């Protein structure tokens, strides 16, 4: 580790033993108003700067400020970091920082036996215990202290004492106690302070007294660790061996935004993003709204339908159009999605999935919109569906979706989820030149044809816009992709009308002809099937053959691959594949399935991909479903496979 990352004021360290860990998991928990998410994000940056690999799981209530001290108001931020490859936010917590009794009550079960719990003892008063529905003070329970290493810190007292001359109100002082806790955690794991200092300076640049208070607490917390003999050991987590490159920490939702901006640059098209705020997709609107220098226009529509309608209108105008939402919004957009299918306009629809049905679990993650994405429209309305698998994979998935949309003149759905959107990980920043450009060739006047001519995309050059006998045929198709031409309004000679009524083949005129309808339904389906031409071969993670193949999609990738690693280490013959292109399904799966005895499909739903797989492959796929609003823990998948193989 470079010397610069060592805190400069840590020059008189207490003579504590240092235990080196390959990885650790910390969970900060407290009231949703306690600044838990900020604390977690700061620890994340400090950890990234220490060159650890990491994965995070913010977990917050749907209520903005739930009643203080209640269990349902507990906000959490879990961070798993290590010198090894980190794929999940961690199964078991090594250190729980509980700002109040409710935070302890909600999260105690996540702490491993023997793990550490740092509590703010000031919050464990009669009122706090009552709010958390504790009959007795859990800190007085000898069982707690025998099972866990409990570190009792009178956080509120310490913070008030440290800031008694700051001139800040009691309320402001109490709100800053997260910085003290952050300081302790940074000390405990030997994280550098610089990143948190820089961030704090930026955040409170306009409020010098608040800035001073926060920096004081950060440092006091750090020093508290070494002065108070509450800690028996400090931990060291060495830098991870990561591929060379420049890194940043990125959340999935940020990566989605960057992928869309990149696609705009690569296609040469302005980006239009129409959206209506909805958890957990709103941050995509917030992120994209920053990028006006790239010509990105964001439109906060009056509702979900207006959001997609405006995007379809923009797409008709020759723009890279995107709309984003979560499950309930997807439901509202479905009719308009069908319109995009019928009019064969490029459109990207981002669905950041959350627990459903109905309002469901707005802030919790789930993978339950897959069948909705693949089938959830009236009529035969196929469209490609892509699923991002990690926060950083969101970048390429968004780019790929845009490319498919314009290459195939089709709406494309991108599935992310709350875990991917809010979770962060180190991202090796890609070379923007590495992704290919996909300049869009709009239809030209020479594509109009005269009577008796064959309609082809590559028409003779001598056609002029003033050729009075020529007609533009908006539904003539590219022979390879079956894409229809994209005619930009403003182009003379290509005036045409489209809409939601069935189209006559080639002319695009209204047609109720029975044979034509069947032809058009088949053509639209075949076009979507041909998106397979763009797929990379399906890669097997692990050995090419074995006893169990785990078949995953979306945000479960980290947990599945971590489980494969653990199982393989025990000698189990387990591999996995992970689908980014969920629909149409890749056509190279059968030979892979042939090489494994058991086919297990882990999903955060009641069995959705498994239905698509059974339909296509008629094999005894085994479901592994978790529907708790939480991501898989690696151990859950590991245990399932162990049980499966042990019962043989």
């Amino acid at each position, binding site marked *: 580790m470079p010397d610069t990352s060592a805190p400069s004021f840590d020059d008189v360290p207490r003579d504590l033993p240092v235990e080196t860990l390959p990885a650790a998991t910390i969970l900060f928990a407290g009231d949703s108003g306690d600044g838990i998410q900020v604390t977690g994000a700061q620890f994340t940056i400090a950890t990234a700067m220490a060159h650890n690999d990491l994965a995070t799981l913010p977990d917050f209530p749907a209520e903005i400020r739930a009643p203080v001290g209640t269990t349902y108001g507990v906000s959490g931020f879990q961070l798993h970091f290590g010198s090894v490859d980190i794929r999940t936010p961690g199964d078991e917590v090594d250190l729980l920082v509980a700002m109040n009794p409710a935070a302890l009550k909600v999260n105690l079960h996540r702490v491993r036996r023997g793990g550490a719990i740092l509590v703010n003892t000031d919050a464990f008063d009669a009122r706090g215990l009552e709010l958390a529905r504790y009959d007795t003070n859990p800190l007085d329970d000898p069982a707690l202290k025998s099972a866990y290493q409990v570190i009792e810190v009178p956080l509120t007292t310490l913070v008030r004492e440290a800031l008694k001359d700051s001139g800040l109100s009691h309320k402001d002082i109490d709100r800053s106690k997260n910085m003290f806790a952050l300081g302790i955690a940074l000390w405990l794991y030997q994280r550098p302070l610089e990143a948190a200092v820089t961030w704090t300076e930026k955040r409170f640049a306009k409020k010098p007294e608040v800035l001073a208070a926060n920096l004081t607490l950060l440092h006091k917390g750090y020093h508290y660790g070494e002065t108070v003999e509450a800690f028996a050991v400090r931990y060291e987590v060495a830098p991870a061996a990561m591929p060379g490159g420049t890194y*940043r920490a990125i959340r999935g939702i940020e990566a989605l935004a960057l992928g869309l901006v990149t696609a705009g640059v690569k296609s040469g098209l302005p980006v239009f993003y129409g959206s209506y705020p909805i958890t957990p997709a709103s941050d995509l609107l917030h992120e994209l709204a920053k990028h*006006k220098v790239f010509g990105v226009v964001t439109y906060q529509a009056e509702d979900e339908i207006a959001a997609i*309608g405006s995007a379809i*209108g923009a797409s008709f105008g020759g723009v890279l159009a995107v709309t984003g939402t979560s499950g309930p919004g997807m439901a509202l957009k479905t009719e308009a999605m069908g319109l995009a299918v019928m009019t064969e306009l490029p459109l990207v629809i981002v669905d950041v999935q959350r627990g459903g049905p109905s309002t469901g679990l707005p802030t919790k993650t789930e993978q339950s919109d897959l069948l909705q994405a693949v089938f959830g429209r009236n009529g035969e309305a196929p469209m490609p569906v892509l699923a991002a698998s990690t926060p950083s994979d969101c970048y390429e998935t968004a780019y790929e979706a845009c490319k498919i949309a314009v290459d195939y003149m089709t709406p494309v759905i991108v599935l992310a989820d709350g875990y991917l959107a809010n979770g962060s990980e180190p991202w090796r920043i890609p070379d923007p030149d590495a992704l290919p450009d996909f300049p869009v060739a709009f239809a030209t006047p020479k594509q109009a044809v005269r009577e008796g001519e064959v309609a082809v995309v590559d028409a003779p050059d001598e056609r002029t816009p003033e050729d009075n006998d020529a007609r533009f045929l908006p539904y003539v198709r590219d022979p390879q992709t079956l894409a229809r031409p994209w005619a930009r309004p*403003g182009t003379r000679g290509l*005036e045409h009308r489209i809409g939601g009524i069935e189209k006559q083949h080639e002319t695009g005129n209204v047609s109720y002809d029975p*044979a034509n309808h069947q032809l058009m339904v088949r053509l639209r389906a075949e076009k979507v099937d041909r998106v397979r031409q763009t797929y990379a071969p399906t890669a097997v993670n692990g050995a090419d053959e074995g006893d169990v193949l785990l078949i995953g999609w979306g945000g479960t990738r980290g947990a599945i691959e971590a489980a494969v690693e653990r199982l393989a280490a025990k000698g189990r013959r387990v591999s996995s594949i992970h689908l980014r292109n969920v629909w149409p399904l890749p056509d190279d799966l059968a030979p892979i399935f042939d090489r494994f005895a058991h086919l297990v499909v882990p999903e955060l739903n009641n069995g959705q991909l498994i239905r698509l797989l059974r339909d296509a492959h008629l094999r005894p796929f085994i479901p592994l479903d978790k529907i708790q609003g939480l991501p898989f823990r690696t151990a859950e998948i590991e245990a399932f496979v162990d049980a499966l193989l042990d019962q043989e």
Partner: protein
Amino acid sequence: MSDPNELSPSTPEQPERPVPTLPPGATAPRRVGTLPPGFASGTKTPASAPGPADARPHPKPAKLAGLPEGPGAPAVLPPRPAMPPAGGDGGGSASAADRKAWATDQDVRWCPGCGDYAILAAVQRLMPELGIERENTVFVSGIGCSSRFPYYMNTYGFHSIHGRAPTLATGLKTMRPELDVWMITGDGDALSIGGNHFIHLLRRNVNLQVILFNNQIYGLTKGQYSPTSEPGKVTKSTPYGSLDHPFNPLSVALGADATFVARAMDRDPKHLTDVLRRAYQHEGTSLVEVYQNCNIFNDHAFEVYTEKATKPFSTVYVEHGKPLVYDQGRKGLRLDGLRLEPVDLTGSAFSADDCMVYDETNRELAHLTIRLFDAPEHLPRPFGVFYVEQRPTYDALVQQQLAEVQALRGPGDLRALLHAGETWTIGNN
């Protein structure tokens, strides 16, 4: 079917029909070079849809004649051309050939006698005289009888879904402000299923024209009452009479801060054309409600305003700067407190000088005038341009903000964007 790629065997047995509605380039049969294998066999270019097409003469294919030379869409929104003086039936100096260039070769499929024909004719008449080009013009519609309109305009067109035309039109105009966008909608489309989008379009003031065909009935679904139907209306869905209170689309529009609010009717094409011309000239969302007769499901709905015997005393045409006088000068409207009161101008008590002089920039007056609606037996129904306000348009503001941010911060640099925030480097990269 054994081969999923084969079309239904019934295809070849389809009776041969003349295909007069096909554009020349699509005449069947001919080789279809772009079909994938498996689709070509036995495939004919399908005939036109069944329908009462044979009952009407088939318009000849439109010509692209008369278009000036020049490149496609201008990059910058040009100022709208000054209007030539109106004249003749419905106004306009466009020749028949000019008008024809704006019509498509598609059969118009509205019921014979429908008021929509007159509105279509007025629009097709107006277009050539506006000095605009077909390729820069887009008609966007929702669902309903009126929303078939774009198919008959030889421009770019989008027949979208029920109630959602404002959303498409907004997205299009926001990103392509140099295009002329017209939105076609009806009382069900705009005020019922699309009511939300309608008010938000108006408050945003997107620079486009809305023609709202109000026939006070659902036509395409065969005759249910609409949000503008009168109370007690007996329809298929209200055999004992409708209990719904109808609303006044123009009051809704003013309530939503619309910047151009007008009313015309299908049976007065000259006035309709004049109002549409003014709507086009206005920068912002121009709402033109058109009373349109549905002779199948709601015939005579506006008869009192359109027929010679009753029209004079049942209607008042408002004009900016002119007193509110009607019935060939025999009656007028006078401001009495906060309401407009009809007065008799034939006696000695009142003259035209006592009548309210209309001011289309006065929102309160517009409100009062538009509310000549609640007691139709005593008051004339007003027509004309009721309210005009100059307010920045949404599309212009969006483009302006983009330009300002780009001027301030320079063009986007993708590499810099990806590297934004805290970064760290591992190895020699």
